């Protein structure tokens, strides 16, 4: 099942296009309010765009003069809210999809039970949704969407509200389940994209700003948001005299692409936080990139500290951080070896 | 209309006669009906009581009536005009007005003229209905100006106000006072005979039991019927 979608929803300032190949999983990333849920609603047929088309496997579902009702699309949507039917038991909620497809009660219950097993809440089968915790409800909703066995599966943040202990397991389940399905997956977690998606589409401000194979997009981001979600630092500027010239006068040198960009081309410089060294004063010595900035935040994790300075981040060891006496508000110098910086046009 | 296979003790055919009659005739006609059934084997009389005007509307619209007994000539004339009467109507009873007060007669009413007293809680029938029209005629004849606190739609409503003690006096038919028993005190006044309400009866066209309908009309006009009506307080036409 391949999906071809384009949609303009004027009221929400959303204008996106998306293609998903047969059996492909595409992750949609983007900040809050970017238009991710809107895109899924259009695909599912719950929202009629002002202009646009939805074509599944060559058959037009939404078009200027075409309209296929949601139930006839066989497109299942796991919305951001669990929205479990409050009057049905957990088991009946999950069995709802199969039963709507015409599966007999017994068989549908069987299927539902195995899906509940898959998401790890088989023991809650007889409960009413009102008696579930937030994370439990979320898992049941995931099971319900999967059980519907749709031609196209739309998942809107399936892992939100889940605890850290079940996330890897569920991700593992999803990986197996989604492998031979056509899926659009909205997520805020780069791990989901990395492990589950073949391709990534980044939406921002209602427009697609980036798309491509997952690792390519995430290792060579072209937009600040993508860099952020990929955990990379990004400096934007124009190419001048063999280096990136940032807006505020920062000059960044690095590994450059072949062919070289022309002077005045827009380029980005990307580097890992762990490649950044932090100093209180500009260091001398070997030619390095230095950026003077102000510490905004310190995030300890494992045995390191992530030093955030605006949009940039540096990872230093805990003792080093202590020695530098880092506190938010301190002026510091970030220094990056040119060999750790990738510069490419956007 | 008729229906067959009734649960009559004899097991024979049951013929049903449907009589539409004014509400004020309820008790008397039910009694007459019983007597009529006794006199006619296999006949069952069904009644539909209501305001004369309502009944006329229903019969005009095709209600399955065999006989119609009205509380006044005006409504009967409407039915005649509608061509729904099989035979000329015959007057079978009259009724006169009487004043009804609560049993203890708190306002000490003794004559019709007392009804114009200031502050008296008087209820009468609306001039649109027969008893109201009669009341108005009486008042006009006597030169009395009535200022009722309410002009009711039916005698029953007037009586209800009196029996509940809400009203000090009401003007109703003599038969109603008789029927109400101890609940009210009836006060007759000399001029009551001047304004008389006449009750006509007639068989209805298209009746499937036209002979029986004629029989019933005759029965009402006969001794048994008139006897029962007299006992209820109705006058002779």
């Amino acid at each position: 099942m391949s999906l071809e979608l384009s949609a303009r929803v004027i009221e929400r300032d959303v204008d996106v296009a998306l293609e998903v190949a047969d059996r492909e999983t595409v992750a949609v990333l983007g900040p809050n309010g970017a238009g991710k849920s809107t895109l899924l609603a259009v695909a599912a047929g719950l929202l009629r765009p002002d202009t646009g088309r939805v074509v599944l496997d060559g058959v037009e579902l939404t078009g200027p003069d075409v309209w296929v009702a949601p139930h006839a699309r066989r497109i299942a949507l796991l919305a951001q809210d669990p929205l479990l039917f409050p009057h049905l038991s957990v088991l009946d909620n999950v069995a709802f999809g199969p039963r709507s497809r015409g599966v007999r009660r017994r068989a549908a219950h069987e299927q539902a039970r195995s899906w509940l097993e898959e998401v790890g809440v088989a023991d809650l089968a007889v409960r009413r949704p009102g008696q579930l915790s937030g994370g439990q409800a979320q898992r049941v909703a995931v099971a319900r969407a999967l059980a519907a066995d749709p031609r196209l599966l739309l998942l809107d943040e399936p892992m939100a509200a889940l605890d850290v202990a079940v996330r890897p397991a569920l991700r593992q389940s999803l990986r197996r389940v989604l492998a031979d399905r056509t899926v659009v997956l909205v997520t805020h977690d780069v791990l989901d994209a990395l492990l589950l998606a073949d391709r990534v589409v980044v939406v921002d401000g209602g427009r697609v700003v980036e798309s491509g194979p997952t690792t390519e997009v995430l290792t060579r981001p072209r937009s600040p948001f993508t860099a952020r979600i990929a955990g990379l630092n990004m400096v934007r500027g124009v190419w001048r005299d063999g280096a990136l010239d940032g807006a505020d006068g920062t000059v960044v040198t690095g590994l450059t692409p072949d062919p070289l960009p022309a002077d005045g081309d827009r380029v980005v410089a990307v580097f890992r936080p762990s490649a950044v060294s932090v100093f209180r004063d500009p260091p001398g010595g070997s030619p390095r990139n230095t950026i003077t900035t102000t510490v905004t935040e310190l995030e300890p994790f494992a045995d390191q500290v992530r030093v955030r300075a605006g949009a940039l981040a540096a990872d230093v060891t805990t003792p080093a951080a202590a020695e530098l006496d880092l506190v938010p508000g301190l002026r510091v110098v970030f220094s990056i070896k040119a060999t750790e910086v990738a510069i490419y046009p956007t | 209309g008729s229906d067959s296979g009734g649960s009559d003790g004899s097991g024979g055919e049951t013929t049903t006669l449907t009589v539409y009659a004014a509400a004020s005739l309820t008790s008397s006609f039910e009694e007459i009906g019983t007597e009529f059934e006794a006199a006619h084997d296999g006949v069952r009389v069904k009644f539909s009581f209501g305001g004369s005007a309502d009944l006329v509307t229903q019969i005009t619209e095709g209600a399955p009536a065999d006989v119609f007994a009205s509380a006044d000539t005006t409504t009967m004339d409407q039915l005649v005009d509608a061509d729904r009467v099989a035979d000329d109507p015959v007057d079978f009873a009259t009724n006169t007005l009487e004043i009804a007060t609560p049993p203890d007669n708190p306002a000490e009413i003794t004559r019709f003229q007392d009804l114009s007293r200031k502050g008296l809680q008087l209820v009468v029938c609306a001039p649109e209905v027969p008893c109201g029209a009669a009341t108005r005629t009486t008042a006009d004849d006597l030169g009395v100006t009535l200022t009722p606190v309410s002009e009711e739609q039916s005698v029953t409503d007037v009586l209800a106000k009196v029996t509940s003690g809400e009203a000090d006096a009401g003007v109703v038919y003599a038969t109603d006072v008789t029927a109400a028993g101890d609940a009210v005190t009836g006060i007759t006044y000399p001029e009551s005979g001047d304004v008389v309400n006449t009750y006509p009866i007639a068989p209805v066209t298209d009746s499937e039991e036209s002979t029986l309908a004629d029989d019933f009309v005759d029965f009402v006009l006969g001794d048994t019927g008139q006897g029962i009506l007299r006992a209820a307080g109705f006058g002779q036409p």
Partner: protein
Amino acid sequence: MRTKQRQVGLPAWIFVPATLGAALVLLPLVGLVSRVEWGSFLELVTSESAMTALSLSLRTSVVATVLCVLLGVPMALVLARTSFRGQGLVRSLVLLPLVLPPVVGGIALLYTFGRRGLLGDELDALGIRIAFSTTAVVLAQTFVSLPFLVVSLEGSLRSAGARYEEVAASLGARPTTVFRRVTLPLVLPGLVSGAVLSFARALGEFGATITFAGSLEGSTRTLPLFIYNLRVVDPDAAVAMSLVLVAVAVLVIALARPGRSTW
């Protein structure tokens, strides 16, 4: 269970008007009951004509309620879940039997289904005579009760919203399935209270019935009509009989009310 208790309180002053309102409704009932002569009550209530009227009332009201549900649920759905030109007008018109004096409603029915009515000739050709039959009673009751079901159910449908229906559709449920398995169960409290209102209205219906169906023992004389007749002859008996009507209504409603829903 203690943990199930509601913990957000009501303003204290709210109990004052609530009690006043309850008093306004309950005091007259007390007044009524206080005047009943219990001695003759039983005899009267079990008289044959009373029982006939009661059973006719119950049968017709139940049928009318069923008709209201069958016709009213779709109407409420169409009003709540679609939008079309002139919908506002249709909605207002459907309200009309609410304000039409029942007697006039009965006249309107006569003008439509009566021998000389709009459909008179068509019905005559089919050999159907509706007016002054038990069918007419049911029709009159349905006519006056239908708006109650529609209005209260449309309110519930709108409050419930369509989000669950969208979810169900995206899970592949056809509209009929959505209706049966999602919409109906979700608005069940609203449907039950709408049906109760309709049933109550049908049971108490008087004006339209007497006009359109007449008042013949066994076929069209329902309990309210019986009571009306009784009142002419014996007002106290009529009051006693009304209490029977009330008791029956309460009983039926109590039996019809599913476990935990509103009514």
